[in-house]
């Protein structure tokens, strides 16, 4: 099943590329069909996944490189557990949304959708891989489509932003590879499960160095201060769908990597450095929020709010307890849907006004009541209003983190206050106020794909807000073995 989820988008990408140039607009339908099929598979995976059975499920496995790199073979091995199942679902959903909001793309259509689908395959591979080498392979595979999408279909300084994204990620993952190779040398295997069972005690280079080499890649991806500067640029210049994917699932690769690899394989080092991690997290939350308040560009504003929100993930991680880790994992999922929706809305506004300057907009609610309302919903969810998914995640994170890191948690809570400020203030400036004459011609959301994209995300946000156990059961089963490692050592 996971293999099918991995292959479907790649097949779609190939089919889209093979379209003749004069029929390339049909690529959007190919993309929609294949992303929907993949979404259906992700739903099946999520439903079939049984939270009460420990370990990985639906595992597909075969020896990939044999003889391998040295004494051990390299495997193709994919499977899901409680940690990856929700993220796979999120990926399936957001890719469909990303394809829908891309229906207005007119330029090099077939390549665009091919890269978008390839991106889904790459990210799926990261979430599903149970082998370090394979994980690294998909981590690198993600770079190309993302670079091309931002560089080729972005706006503003797209070339620069795409290259910045590429170099940051590559520099981070470079050290990750060195870390992986050292782990492989010590453990005699690259299989994540085996390394988790028997974490290396000693290595060629100090394990704390290995820990940071690996963490660097994840922290860049997450991202947190001070390695976040690629994110606002990439978001601002990326096309809407790519922003949705970037905020929605790509950032989750960082958090997922920490939970799947860094913590279970190097628990002692994580424990040693938890205070530093919490400090980075707390600072990132407040720093991100303060910078967000100063933004004049609507898209950049949402981008910086991501830096702040991803700080919560790291805060939950740094707590190293069941509650905090669950909060972090849940925050990843909810941030994916909420920020995904925010970027969809920003894209819809931009498509109509052709500006993202907040100061130029005023009273848009009169012209586009639906867009305004959904934006407000997304904003409220983002600031953690009870009844929406963001609230559950943030509350859980704070509960889990408070004992271990009171100062960082208080900083985090302060971040929520700031979030309320920037979100409400933005909505007020853009949608309320006196209607501006120059926007008199604007239309509301009026195309079926726009309705579908908005609707599916709003439903998921409310659903998780009201019935968090839909997701939390799975997440808790995934977090449980990680938390047990730290309970045992504490």
């Amino acid at each position, binding site marked *: 099943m996971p293999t099918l989820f991995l292959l479907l988008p790649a097949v779609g990408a190939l089919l889209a590329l093979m379209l003749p*140039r004069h029929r390339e607009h049909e690529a959007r339908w190919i993309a929609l069909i294949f992303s929907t099929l993949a979404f259906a598979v992700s739903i099946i995976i999520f439903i079939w996944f049984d939270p009460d059975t420990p370990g990985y499920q639906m595992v597909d496995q075969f020896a*990939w*490189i*044999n*003889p*391998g*790199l*040295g004494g051990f073979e390299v495997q193709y091995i994919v499977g899901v557990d409680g940690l990856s199942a929700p993220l796979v679902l999120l990926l399936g959903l957001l890719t469909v949304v990303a394809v829908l909001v891309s229906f207005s793309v007119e330029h*090099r259509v077939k*390549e665009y959708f091919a890269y978008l689908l390839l991106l889904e395959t790459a990210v799926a591979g990261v979430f599903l891989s149970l082998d370090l*080498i394979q994980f690294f*392979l*998909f981590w*690198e*595979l993600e*770079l*190309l489509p993302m*670079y*091309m999408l931002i*560089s*080729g279909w972005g706006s503003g300084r797209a*070339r620069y932003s*795409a*290259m910045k994204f*590429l*170099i940051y990620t*590559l*520099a981070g993952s*470079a*050290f990750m*590879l*060195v870390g992986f*190779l*050292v782990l*492989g*040398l010590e453990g005699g295997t690259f299989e994540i499960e085996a390394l988790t069972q028997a974490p290396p005690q000693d290595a*060629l*280079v100090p394990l704390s160095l290995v820990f940071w080499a690996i963490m660097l890649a994840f922290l860049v991806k997450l991202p947190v201060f001070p390695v976040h500067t690629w994110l606002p640029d990439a978001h601002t210049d990326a096309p809407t769908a790519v922003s949705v994917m970037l905020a929605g699932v790509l950032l989750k690769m960082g958090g997922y990597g920490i939970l799947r690899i860094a913590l279970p394989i190097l628990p002692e080092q994580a424990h040693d450095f938890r205070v530093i991690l919490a400090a980075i997290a707390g600072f990132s939350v407040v720093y991100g929020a303060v910078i967000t308040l100063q933004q004049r560009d609507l898209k950049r504003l949402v981008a910086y709010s991501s830096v702040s929100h991803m700080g919560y993930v790291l805060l939950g991680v740094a707590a190293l307890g069941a509650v905090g880790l669950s909060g972090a994992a849940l925050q990843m999922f909810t941030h994916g849907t909420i920020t995904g929706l925010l970027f969809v809305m920003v894209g819809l506004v931009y498509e109509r006004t052709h500006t993202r300057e907040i100061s130029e907009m005023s009273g848009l609610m009169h012209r586009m009541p639906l867009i305004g309302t959904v934006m407000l919903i997304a904003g409220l969810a983002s600031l953690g209003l009870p009844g929406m998914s963001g609230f559950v995640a943030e509350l859980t994170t704070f509960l889990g983190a408070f004992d271990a890191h009171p100062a960082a948690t208080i900083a985090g809570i302060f971040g929520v206050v700031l979030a309320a400020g920037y979100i409400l203030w933005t909505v007020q400036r853009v949608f309320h106020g006196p209607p501006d004459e120059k926007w008199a011609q604007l239309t509301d959301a009026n195309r079926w794909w726009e309705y579908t994209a908005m609707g599916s995300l709003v439903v998921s946000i409310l659903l998780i807000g009201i019935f968090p156990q839909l997701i939390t059961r799975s997440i808790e089963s995934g977090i449980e073995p990680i938390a047990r490692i730290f309970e045992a050592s504490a």
Partner: protein
Amino acid sequence: MSGWELVHHIGPSIALFVGAGIVLSADMLLPRGRAPLVMLTLLTLVVAGGWALWHANTGTSGPAFEGAVVMDRFALFFIFLLVSATAAVTVASTEWAQELDLKGEYYALLLVAAGAMSLLAQGNDLILIFIALETTSIVQYVLVGVTRKDRSAEAGIKYLISGAVAAGLMIYGFAFLFGTTGATSLDGIATFVQSGPEDARLPLTLGFVLVAAGFGFKMAIVPFHGWAPDVYQGGPTPVISFLSVASKAGGFAIALRLFYNGLGGGDTFISEDWAIMFGVFAVASMLFGNLGALVQTDARRLLGYSSIAQAGNVAIGLAAVAAGTTLGPSGVMFFLGTYVATNLGAFFAVIAISERIGSYEIKDYAGVFKRAPILAGVLMLCLLSLTGIPPTAGFIAKLYVFNGAVQAGEEWLVAVVAIAVVNTAISAFYYLSWVRTMALDDPEEETSIRTTGPMQAMLGLAATGVLFFGLVPAPLISAAQRAAEALSVPLS
């Protein structure tokens, strides 16, 4: 050993030399333009390849000619590699060679170069190594100048002068090795080195550093790389495509043979010394090559710097010596195997595209993907492979070499790998900028670009190789590992 057995021992090389003679005679005797030169060249390569296959199947191995040459799996690996690369270049350059005055000489020289390098891969004696290496070099100087145009001749002279200096240093190094050990055969040198005479350390070190200069010239590693960018830009591109893979493979082959067999692999008192030397060369090559490539605007010059940087990657495999493991040398061989497909694919695509657009400037490649999806697609694939992006062969090759270095279990090698992976990030900048220019920029004109059938076939072959070894690397890895095991078997 009977005469036939001796001939059989170096059969592939003999076939190639004889073939070169036949090609030359055919060119001379038959009316101009009527001689089936390409067919004869390919036939020769098929015979040589078949002969190597015969050896592979019958398992002939061991030394001959008083131990001066040895036919083992290691030699066979490189013979196959060189013969395939030569065949690919022959087919891909047919169109270009049509215009050439010295057509017969061109094909004959290709065969001589391949034959000499095959012999080099079998070389097990300093004197034979020197002769084989010089034969290759001289042939290549002539090849670079084969069009007799200004740029080509200038490049040929540059190549000749730096090559002559390198050869001089190398023979000086050989003299040190012979003077210290009293043997020209690698077996004899190995016996001496394994006895571990501490007081011979200095002359031995002087010897292998100077020898490395000669080999490093072939591999184009820093600090013996000076010729590469100029020659790559100035020389005829089909010849350069041959040079870029065959010369590099030959250089690394003989370096592996000499350092692993002659200087005793991973468990002698000086192995760490030369491992560190290659580590330094690797780091310098990667940094110099990548930083140099960043500012290039000419496709050939960029590939020249890129080849220096890639040589640095391969040299990590040479530095990764450790007793009891063949990961380092097999990494070198696997990398070279994938590099032949990747770099030839890149060069062929550059030839095919630049021939039609009339420019080697990268900015003129704008939007080529729209005008020639297949050509540009192959070039993009090869550039991704050179960067090391999955699912291409280049990804596995880098992974393999880096892993081999870490597995050697030395802290300084981990540092070398860390520098190497950072260099990969640097290289992504220029490789992917080029990819971007081709894929996303708007072309100045929309007319489609076509190329010849043979060229298309070779491009298809290269692309298949790049993808196949990226997805199914196991066959090439086993071949490289078995070849590397031949190195560690004591010869006496």
